[in-house]
């Protein structure tokens, strides 16, 4: 799989581990939330670990562990299932998570900017996917109407701030 991150297309170096032993091998691994919860003591020492969060789960369950994990993967079962957008914002804005948040599933390029705005910073796509539309969509709209996880200034505030302040 390929990863679209920070305006570039990268080869994904993360793997998925089914057991704690596998996850502890060298390399970066995602584990399921259940595995993490069952093997927390074993896995907590490892730095390159990520958790896959089911989209009906409140991200609050990760609150005690967020300083120990490097990444959270959000699953989008369909592009129309927008729960992950709320999960991402909760992770960034309420729980202060600073690691990678990646989106997985049959998303469409036109959603890229929304994902970025909600705090998702990496999108998993097929190796064969045409990434042109994804990259174009990320930068399409210059202004925004609402605040989100990306610290862009919403129009209703930017209109009343000095231009220098917006730029900084």
């Amino acid at each position: 799989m390929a990863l679209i991150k920070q305006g570039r297309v990268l080869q994904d170096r993360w793997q998925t581990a089914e057991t704690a032993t596998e996850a502890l091998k060298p390399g970066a691994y995602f584990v399921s939330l259940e595995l993490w919860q069952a093997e927390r003591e074993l896995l907590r020492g490892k730095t390159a670990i990520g958790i896959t969060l089911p989209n009906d789960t409140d991200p609050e369950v990760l609150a005690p562990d967020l300083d120990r994990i490097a990444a959270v993967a959000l699953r989008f079962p369909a592009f129309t299932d927008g729960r992950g957008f709320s999960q991402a914002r909760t992770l960034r804005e309420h729980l202060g998570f600073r690691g990678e948040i990646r989106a997985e599933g049959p998303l469409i390029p036109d959603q890229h900017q929304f994902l970025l705005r909600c705090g998702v910073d990496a999108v998993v796509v097929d190796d064969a996917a045409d990434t042109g539309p994804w990259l174009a969509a990320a930068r399409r709209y210059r202004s925004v109407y609402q605040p989100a996880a990306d610290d862009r200034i919403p129009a209703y505030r930017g209109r009343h701030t000095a231009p220098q302040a917006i730029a900084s």
Partner: protein
Amino acid sequence: MYAYDAIDRELVETRVAEFREQVARRVSGELTEEQFRPLRLMNGLYLQLHAYMLRVAVPYGVLSSAQMRKLAHIARRYDRGYGHFTTRQNIQYNWPKLEETPDILAELAEVEMHAIQTSGNCIRNTTADQFAGAAADEVDDPRIWSEIIRQWSTFHPEFSFLPRKFKIAVTGAQKDRAAIKVHDIGIVIVRNDAGELGFQMWAGGGQGRTPMIAKLIRGFVAERDLLSYLEAMLRVYNRHGRRDNKYKARIKILVHELGADEYARQVEAEWARIREGVLSLPQAEIDRIRAAFDEPPFERFEGDSRAFHGKRFEDRGFQRWVRSNVKPHKKPGYAIANISLKPVGGIPGDATADQMDAVADFADRWSFGEVRVAHEQNLVLPHVRQDDLYGLWLALGAVDLDTPNIGLLGDIIACPGLDYCSLANARSIPLSQALSERFGDLDRLHDIGEISLNISGCINACGHHHVGNIGILGVDKKGEEFYQITLGGRADEDAAVGRIVGRAFDAHETVDAVETIVETYVAQRRDGERFIDTLERTGPAPFKEALYGAD
């Protein structure tokens, strides 16, 4: 009226360019219909029974004369010379060509209009009282707050893929003309005991197959907190609304299943975290938008116009039109003039390009260039001098827009039904035309008085049949079109869902059945009693008996 600044313009123009690219990719075959579908739906482009249908947003029902002329031009240049005004204060074009839709959107952008979020499971066009800024019973102008909501909800990164479509309505008046209690969120502008302006927040109303009346979620939200409270309401819905079953996905089901108290508790918990943040509205922005809706330069009059009353006395036709179509204005000497899009035997909500142009001219001449679209599928000139009403009425007559039936039985709300819609069980338009003909006698119409008659071609309820005093629902009985009648629905501040009276009728019988219902009312009514009051006093028994006989 609100005028776009550089930011608003940039967003809409970017959207047009993006859509142009998407259509080009579809036309070249690079995108399949399946891939194109979600993209076109984000721009209000549906595929219907016979053709594409484009739904253009009329934000909170407000149009300038220039915008109305553009709508006329689009009807003429890209469609078959007419458009259809809907119960959501939008306009639909039934015959656009796919290749031309980017040009239509570009033309709309020239007059600060668009089709963004007119379909899809996102926050749709926010609707409001069509008498905003003109009504005598207004606490504050709902256009200000609807515009703030329009901007916040446009391209909302978190709420563009909700469990289901999401509709917000706002009223600032005592009398609810915006049907807020049958919306996902209904907002009533109020003043608290300290005299501060704020909002009563309702949620969980809706129609479709499980009609529900909204519940009060919070009695008062201060001006600066409007967006943070809305965001909390939407976030709880986005996370917990059902996605396993599209018929249970609306917020009304969530509010019903959790209970209004529990939903409110979750909203409060979420709100507590975001309330003091960037979402709180700066006073400078509230002031900026309020200024956009400043009153037009009204003339000062001492009281009612004497000449106007003289004309009413002289001309019976004029008097009849005034009785039903003219409503009181907050300024002495002014009036609100309603333009019925329900001519006898016509298609509810349809207007020709020539009629749209004419209305734009009348607006320039007599209403400070302002037009409104009402959710009852009519148009409104909000600020007409009483002295000008007679001239306006004559001019309306010349373009067949003077039908005196606002609020009366001929003012039928009807969805497109089987003539256009792929989900329909039955036709709505021919039935509404037949009913309109049957009750075509204007004297009789006025004698019957205030009554709402709403028709939907299927349970999705686009024609608001659940909340019509008389509701008619198209049903399919072994491949034949039948109609089920409900009584007692209402969409006002005492909103209620109508109850089924009995077995369904075929189209022909339905017209007779409505006649029977009306005759029963006329026989039962007491002095000054409206249909809905009589029905509430007597209950449905006399109506059932008249329709089906005693049993």
